[in-house]
C-alpha cells in the first residue's frame, strides 16, 4: 500500500507541480507538432510514456550505483542518452520484427518521441528528486501524463488560436506561447506563487 501511495504521490507531483510543458517547458516544440493532429497526440503520448517509464526504471539502478561519483553530473547526459538509445533500438527491433505495419506507420516520427527534452528532462528531474524505485516509476508516468494533458489542451485551443481574430503576426507559435504562459499561471495556482522568491 505504501509503495502504491509513493507511486501516486510521485505521479501527481510530476503531472501538476513539475508539468513537462507548463512548469518546465520540456518538449515544447514536439508538443506544438503533436497538437496539430489527434492521431499524433496519441502516438507521441504512448511513445513518450513508454520510453520515460522504461528508462526511469533503468536509471534508478544507475543512479544508485554512480550517485556518489564526483563527476556523475558531467557524464549523466551521456549515460542517459545511451539508456534511452538502447530502449529505443530494442523497442524498434521488436516492433519491426513482430508488427511491421505499425513500424512503417511510426518510423517517420518515432525519433521525436524519444530524443526530445521531455524524455531526458524527466530522467534528469527524477535524479534530482532521487526517490525509491516506485517514486522513479511514478514520476516517469506523471511526467508523460502531464505532457499528454498539456498537448491535449494545446490541441483544443489550436483552432481558435489560429483563427483570423488573432493578428496575423501572432497567429501560430507566438499566441500558443502566450496561451501556455496563461495555462502555466493557472498550474502555478496549485502550488502557490510567491513573487518574492521563486
Amino acid at each position, binding site marked *: 500500500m505504501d509503495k502504491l501511495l509513493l507511486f501516486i504521490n510521485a505521479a501527481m507531483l510530476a503531472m501538476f507541480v513539475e508539468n513537462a510543458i507548463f512548469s518546465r517547458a520540456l518538449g515544447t516544440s514536439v508538443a506544438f507538432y503533436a497538437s496539430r493532429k489527434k492521431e499524433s497526440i496519441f502516438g507521441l503520448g504512448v511513445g513518450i510514456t513508454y520510453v520515460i517509464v522504461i528508462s526511469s526504471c533503468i536509471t534508478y539502478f544507475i543512479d544508485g550505483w554512480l550517485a556518489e561519483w564526483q563527476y556523475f553530473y558531467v557524464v549523466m547526459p551521456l549515460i542517459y542518452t545511451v539508456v534511452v538509445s538502447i530502449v529505443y533500438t530494442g523497442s524498434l527491433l521488436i516492433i519491426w520484427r513482430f508488427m511491421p505495419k505499425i513500424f512503417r506507420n511510426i518510423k517517420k516520427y518515432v525519433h521525436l518521441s524519444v530524443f526530445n527534452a521531455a524524455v531526458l528532462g524527466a530522467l534528469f528531474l527524477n535524479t534530482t528528486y532521487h526517490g525509491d524505485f516506485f517514486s522513479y516509476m511514478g514520476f516517469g508516468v506523471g511526467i508523460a501524463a502531464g505532457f499528454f494533458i498539456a498537448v491535449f489542451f494545446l490541441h483544443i485551443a489550436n483552432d481558435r488560436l489560429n483563427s483570423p481574430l488573432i*493578428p496575423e503576426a501572432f497567429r501560430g*507559435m*507566438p499566441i500558443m506561447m502566450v496561451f501556455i504562459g496563461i495555462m502555466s499561471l493557472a498550474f502555478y495556482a496549485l502550488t502557490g506563487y510567491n513573487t518574492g522568491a521563486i
Partner: protein
Amino acid sequence: MAQAKQMKPLKTRKSNFKFTRDLFDGLAKQNVVLMTGIVNAPVIIAATTFKKGVVIAIAFALISFLTIVTCSFIPKKIVYTLRVIIYAVVGSVYYIPTVLLLEQMFPLTVELIGIYMPLIITNALIFSKTESRFYLENRLKMIVDVLFFIAGFSVICVLTGGFREVICFGTLAGIKLFDFSIAAFESPFGGFILVGIMAGTFRALYNYLRNRRIKQNAAQHNAEAVKVYRKASSQNKKDAGTPALQSGNEK
C-alpha cells in the same frame, strides 16, 4: 531495377540554398526561438539573467556546432532512425568538455541553469534541421549556415536574459539600474508570455520590412519598365517617321 529508380531522387537530393539569398535565414527568417520556435526551453526557463543567457548561448554554440559538423561525416546509408542515436551520443560527448570549461569560467551560473544545460544536446537544430537543411548543403555552406542559426539563437537568448534581468531585478549584468522590478517575469509563465510577445512583435516587424522591400522593388521595377516603354515608344515613333521620309525620297 525498380528499386534503383526509386533510390535515385534520394541520392541526388540537393538543397536549393542560395548563398547570398539564404545566408541570413538563421538570424531572422528562420530564427529558432522567435520564428520557428523549435529551441525555446532554455530561453523561457533558464535565461533569467544576462549572465545565464551568455552561458546558455556559449554552451549551445559549442555543443550544436561541434555535433552538427562531426555528424555530417556519418554516411547517409545508415537510416535516419538509427543515425539519430549517433547524433545524441556525439552531442552528449561534446557536452562533457563544454560543461567542464564553463564551470571553470562561470561556476555558480552553470549550477543555477541546472537541467537546461544538458538538455541542449536534444535541441532541434541537431535532430531536425540537420536532415531538412544542413546536410543537404555542401560543407562550407553548411558551416556558415549553422553559424548563422547559432548566432540567431544566441542573440535572442542573451537579449531575453538581459531584458528579464532588467525588469525582474532592476539590474543588468549585476549593475544596479533602478529599484523598480516585476518579479513574475522570472517565472516560467512570465518567460512564456514574454517570448510569445517577442515572437509576435519580431514577426510583425519582419513582415513589415519584407513588404516594404517588396513594394520598393516593385516601384523600382515599374520605374524601369516605364523608362524602357518610353524609350521603345520613342524609338517606334522614329522608326515610323523614317519609312515616310524614305518613301518620299523614293518618290
